[in-house]
C-alpha cells in the first residue's frame, strides 16, 4: 500500500503552532475591482495568527515560502506559474516556493479552477500576498538595522543595508523564532514588471520529471490502508439529463460467487457493489443482474436541432444597437444562415477516480475536483453530514477540460464508503466517463447579415439556442449536481443560465446589431449539460467567424482585410496582423476552387476573437487540404497570434496554446456524441474518436507580450478560434460552407455534392 504523501497528512494546526513563521492571509472572496483598490489595513506585526484566516502564504525560518492555494493543477502547468509569481515578488529561487493545492481544510476558497482564470484571479491574490510579505520583511529589517527601508536592498532571500555588506540578514533570520501575521495589503508595493527575472521566463514545470519516471501520484494512484474498491451500476438512460428509470430488482447471486465480493449497496436508484480488489469489483458489477423500468426519453438524434429550436427557453437580449430590422431591409445584399454544434464530451485519457473515507459522521474525500469547496457542500448534502465534517482534498488527475466526472466519482465513492463503513476507491470505467460525465451542450445559431453598397456590414443579427453550460456542484442545488444525488433522490441537475452566451456578441463595429440568447431550460437540454473547455464560445465563435467570412466572400473582399475594416480595438488589430504576417497571408478575394498538383483542394482560413469579449485576444489561421473524392479534411498548418497581457511562463503558455489548437481540431473534425432514444451510445474511443498523431499539423505561435498589462487567462481562448478557422479554410479550398459540426468527411462531401448539383442545374 502506498502511504499518504507527507503533504496530505500535514495538519494546519500543527503548521500554525510551529515556530518562526511570517504568515500573510488573503481574502477568500473572489477578487473584485473594489478589493484591488481598497486599502486592507495590515494587522499589527507580532499579533498571533488565529485560525480564522484560511488563505495564506507562509515564510518560514528555512527561507522558503509555502502557498496554500485553493486552486488546483489541471495539467496546465499552473503550479509552476503560481510559484513563479511568488518567487518573483519575494526574490526567492523557484525551488524555495512550494504550493499546497486544493484542500478544504488547508487552502483558501478561490472558486473553481475554470474559465482559464487561475492566473488571472488567483495569481493576482498571490502576487499581492507575496508583496505584503516582502513589505513586512523589509519593515523587520528596517527596525533591526535601525535604517529607513529605503536604505535596504532585498535579493535572493537576503535583505542588506545599502553599501554595507556586513549588515545583512536572510528572511529566515529576520523571522527567527517569532510569529508574525498580516492580512493582504492591497497597497503593498509590487515589483516593476521591467525588473522581472522569474516571471516571463520559460521555466520547466516542476512535476514533469516524476511523471516521466512513474513516481508521480495521480488520484488514480491514491491509496489508503484498508481500502476497498467500488463500482456503480446505473440505469440504461446513459447521460440523459433526466434519468427516467426506476429500480425494480437486483439479483446478486452470481456476484456473490466472486472471490473478494463484499456488499451490494442500494439507495434509491443508486446501485453499487463493493469488493476487496479492483478486479473483483469489476467482475461483480458485471455479474450483478439489475432490472430497471426505464423510459426512453431522448429524441432521435437526427431531430436534435429541431428539438433544440422548439424547446422551452427564456429569451435574453444581449446586445441591441441601432436598428437591425430597418438596416437589414435596406441592405444591398443580405445573407442568412443556421449553424449547429453537437454534444461533445471530455477526452480525459484517465477516467475519473476518487477515494472516500466516510465513518462516524465524518468524511474525507480525495478527488481531482475543480472546486473542492463547492464539492464539500454537495457531498455534505448527499451524505447528510455537516459541511464542516466533510474534508475534500484535491489530488491531481488526468487532464480535465471542464466539468468531467471528478465530482461525480467522489459522490459515488462517498456513498459506497458510508454504506460499508470503510474507505472505498471508485475508478470509473471508460464507458462511465464517456457516458455519464456532464456534456458540452449542443447548440444552434441563426444569423442574418446585411451589406451596404460599399460592402460594409450594415446589419447583423445573432440568435443562439443553448442550455446552461454550468451545472457544477455549488452552482445551485448541491446534490442535484452530483450524479449519485440524481440517482438517490431522483432529481435533475440545476444551474444558473451561464456560459452559452460566451462570445455570442460579435467583436466588430457593426452599426446595427442584435444578439439574443434563448436559454433552453435545463430539464430540456437532452443530455446533462455542463462546462467543456471554452463553454459556449466554441460554437459561438464558429458561427460568428464563419458568418463574417460568408459576408466577406459575398462582398468580394479579402477575409483579413474585411475583419480589420470592422475592428476598432488596437490589440485585436495587432493579433490579426501578427497572424497574417506569420502565415504569409496573401490578400485576395476568394477565388474559385482549383485542384493542386496533388489532386486535392487547398485553402486557408482565419478566425479572430477576444475571449469573453473582454479578455485574451486570439487570431488563428489554418491551412487545410481537402480530398475531393471523400471530403476528408487534413489540417496542414495552424498559426496562432495570442495576446494575454503579461506572460508568466512563455513555454507553459505555448504548451497550452498548442494543446488548445490540437484539441480544437479534434473537436472540429471528429468529435460528436451519438445517442438513441434511451441514452448515449458512443461509450469508447472507437465510437467517439479523437485526433491521432498522423493528423497533427504544424503549429506556429506568435506571443504578443504586454508586461505592463494584467495577465489574462490563457487555457481556453485559443480553442474557440479553431473551428471557424478550419471551416473558413475548407470553404476557401472547396467553396463548400459546412455549417454543422463536426466537419467530418461525410459532411464535407455532402456539401460538395450538393454544391456540384446546384452548379450543374444553374449552369
Amino acid at each position: 500500500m502506498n502511504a499518504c504523501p507527507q503533504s496530505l497528512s500535514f495538519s494546519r494546526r500543527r503548521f500554525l503552532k510551529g515556530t518562526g513563521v511570517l504568515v500573510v492571509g488573503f481574502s477568500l472572496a473572489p477578487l473584485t475591482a473594489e478589493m484591488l483598490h481598497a486599502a486592507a489595513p495590515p494587522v499589527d506585526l507580532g499579533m498571533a495568527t488565529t485560525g480564522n484566516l484560511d488563505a495564506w502564504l507562509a515564510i518560514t525560518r528555512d527561507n522558503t515560502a509555502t502557498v496554500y492555494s485553493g486552486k488546483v493543477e489541471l495539467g496546465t502547468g499552473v503550479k509552476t506559474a503560481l510559484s513563479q509569481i511568488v518567487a518573483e515578488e519575494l526574490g526567492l529561487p523557484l525551488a524555495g516556493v512550494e504550493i499546497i493545492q486544493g484542500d478544504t481544510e488547508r487552502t483558501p476558497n478561490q472558486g473553481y479552477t475554470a474559465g482559464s482564470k487561475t492566473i488571472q484571479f488567483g495569481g493576482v491574490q498571490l502576487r499581492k500576498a507575496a508583496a505584503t510579505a516582502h513589505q513586512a520583511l523589509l519593515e523587520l529589517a528596517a527596525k533591526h538595522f535601525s535604517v529607513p527601508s529605503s536604505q535596504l536592498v532585498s535579493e535572493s532571500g537576503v535583505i542588506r543595508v545599502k553599501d554595507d555588506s556586513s549588515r545583512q540578514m536572510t528572511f529566515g533570520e529576520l523571522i527567527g523564532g517569532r510569529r508574525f501575521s498580516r492580512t493582504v495589503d492591497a497597497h503593498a508595493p509590487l515589483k516593476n514588471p521591467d525588473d522581472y527575472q522569474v516571471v516571463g521566463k520559460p521555466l520547466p514545470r516542476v512535476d514533469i520529471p516524476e511523471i516521466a519516471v512513474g513516481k508521480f501520484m495521480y488520484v488514480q494512484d491514491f491509496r489508503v490502508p484498508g481500502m476497498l474498491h467500488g463500482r456503480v451500476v446505473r440505469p440504461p438512460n446513459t447521460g440523459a439529463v433526466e434519468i427516467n428509470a426506476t429500480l425494480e430488482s437486483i439479483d446478486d447471486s452470481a456476484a456473490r460467487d466472486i472471490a473478494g465480493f463484499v456488499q451490494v449497496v442500494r439507495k434509491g436508484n443508486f446501485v453499487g457493489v463493493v469488493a476487496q480488489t479492483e478486479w473483483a469489483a469489476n467482475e461483480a458489477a458485471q455479474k450483478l443482474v439489475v432490472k430497471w423500468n426505464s423510459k426512453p426519453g431522448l429524441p432521435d438524434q437526427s431531430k436534435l436541432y429541431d428539438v433544440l429550436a422548439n424547446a422551452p427557453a427564456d429569451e435574453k437580449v444581449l446586445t441591441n444597437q441601432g436598428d437591425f430590422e430597418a438596416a437589414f431591409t435596406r441592405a444591398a445584399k443580405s445573407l442568412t444562415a443556421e449553424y449547429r454544434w453537437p454534444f461533445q464530451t471530455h477526452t480525459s485519457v484517465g477516467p475519473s477516480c476518487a477515494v472516500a473515507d466516510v465513518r462516524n459522521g465524518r468524511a474525507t474525500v480525495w478527488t481531482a475536483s475543480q472546486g473542492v469547496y463547492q464539492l464539500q457542500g454537495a457531498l455534505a448534502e448527499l451524505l447528510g453530514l455537516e459541511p464542516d465534517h466533510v474534508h475534500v482534498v484535491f489530488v491531481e488527475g488526468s487532464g480535465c477540460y471542464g466539468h468531467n466526472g471528478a465530482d461525480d466519482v467522489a459522490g459515488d465513492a462517498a456513498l459506497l464508503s458510508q454504506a460499508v463503513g470503510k474507505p472505498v476507491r471508485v475508478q470509473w470505467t471508460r464507458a462511465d466517463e464517456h457516458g455519464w460525465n456532464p456534456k458540452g451542450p449542443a447548440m444552434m445559431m441563426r444569423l442574418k447579415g446585411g451589406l451596404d453598397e460599399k460592402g460594409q456590414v450594415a446589419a447583423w443579427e445573432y440568435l443562439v439556442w443553448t442550455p446552461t453550460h454550468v451545472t457544477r456542484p455549488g452552482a445551485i442545488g448541491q446534490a442535484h449536481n452530483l450524479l449519485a444525488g440524481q440517482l438517490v433522490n431522483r432529481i435533475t441537475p440545476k444551474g444558473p443560465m451561464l456560459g452559452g452566451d460566451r462570445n455570442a456578441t460579435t467583436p466588430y463595429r457593426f452599426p446595427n446589431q442584435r444578439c439574443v440568447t434563448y436559454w433552453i431550460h435545463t430539464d430540456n437540454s437532452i443530455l446533462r449539460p455542463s462546462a467543456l473547455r471554452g463553454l459556449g464560445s466554441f460554437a459561438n465563435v464558429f458561427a460568428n467567424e464563419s458568418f463574417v467570412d460568408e459576408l466577406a466572400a459575398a462582398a468580394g473582399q479579402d477575409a483579413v482585410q474585411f475583419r480589420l475594416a470592422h475592428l476598432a480595438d488596437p490589440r485585436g488589430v495587432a493579433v490579426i496582423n501578427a497572424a497574417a504576417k506569420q502565415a504569409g497571408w496573401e490578400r485576395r478575394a476568394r477565388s474559385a476552387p482549383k485542384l493542386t498538383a496533388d489532386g486535392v483542394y487547398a485553402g486557408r482560413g482565419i478566425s479572430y476573437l477576444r475571449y469573453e469579449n473582454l479578455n485574451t485576444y486570439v487570431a488563428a489561421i489554418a491551412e487545410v487540404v481537402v480530398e475531393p473524392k471523400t471530403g476528408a479534411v487534413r489540417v496542414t498548418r495552424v498559426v496562432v497570434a495570442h495576446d494575454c497581457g503579461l506572460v508568466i511562463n512563455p513555454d507553459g503558455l505555448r504548451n497550452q496554446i498548442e494543446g488548445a489548437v490540437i484539441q480544437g481540431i479534434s473537436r472540429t473534425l471528429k468529435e460528436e456524441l451519438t445517442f438513441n432514444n434511451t441514452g448515449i451510445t458512443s461509450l469508447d474511443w472507437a465510437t467517439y474518436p479523437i485526433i491521432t498523431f498522423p493528423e497533427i499539423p504544424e503549429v506556429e505561435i506568435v506571443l504578443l507580450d504586454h508586461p505592463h498589462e494584467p495577465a489574462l487567462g490563457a487555457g481556453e481562448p485559443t480553442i474557440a478560434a479553431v473551428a471557424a478557422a478550419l471551416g473558413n479554410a475548407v470553404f476557401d479550398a472547396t467553396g463548400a460552407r459546412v455549417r454543422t459540426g463536426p466537419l467530418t468527411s461525410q459532411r464535407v462531401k455532402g456539401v460538395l455534392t450538393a454544391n456540384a448539383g446546384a452548379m450543374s442545374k444553374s449552369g
Partner: protein
Amino acid sequence: MTRLNLKVNGKSHSVTADPQSMLLYVLRNDLALRGPRFGCGLGQCGACTVLIDGAQARSCVVPVSSAVGRSIVTLEGLGTLDHPHPLQKAFIQEQAAQCGYCMNGMIMTAAALLKRSPNPSDERIKQALASNLCGCGTHLRIVRAIKRAAREIA
C-alpha cells in the same frame, strides 16, 4: 485465485491473483507501480503500455497468466530520476506533458519503436503512435521528445 510468479523490471514477484485478471491490475494494485496507467481497459488508448519480452503490450488486455515467465518492463524499469532513460530525459527536456497521463504509453511505445528503428522520421513516429491517445494535445512535443531521444541514443 492462484499464486503466480511474475518477472517485473528484473525482479521476480509472487502474487495471488485471478489468472484471468488483466496484468495492468496486478502491476498497479499488487506491485504498487504507477507507470502503467488505466485509460480504457479496452486496448484503445495505450495508457497501460508495458514491454513484454521487449515488445510493447497493452497490459489492460493481457491476462496475467499469459505474462508468467516473461520479462515485463514498466516505465519504472526504464529509468529513475537519477538515471533516466534517454526517452524519459527527452520528455522532461521537451516538457512533453500537459496532464502527463498519456506519457507512460508514449514513452513505452517509443522505447519499442527505437529498438526496431533507431532513427525514425517524424512520419514513422506518428505512425507508431497512431493508436496512442492524448486528450490534452501534447502530440507535437511528444514527437520532438522522441526525436531528441533517438539522437541521444545514436
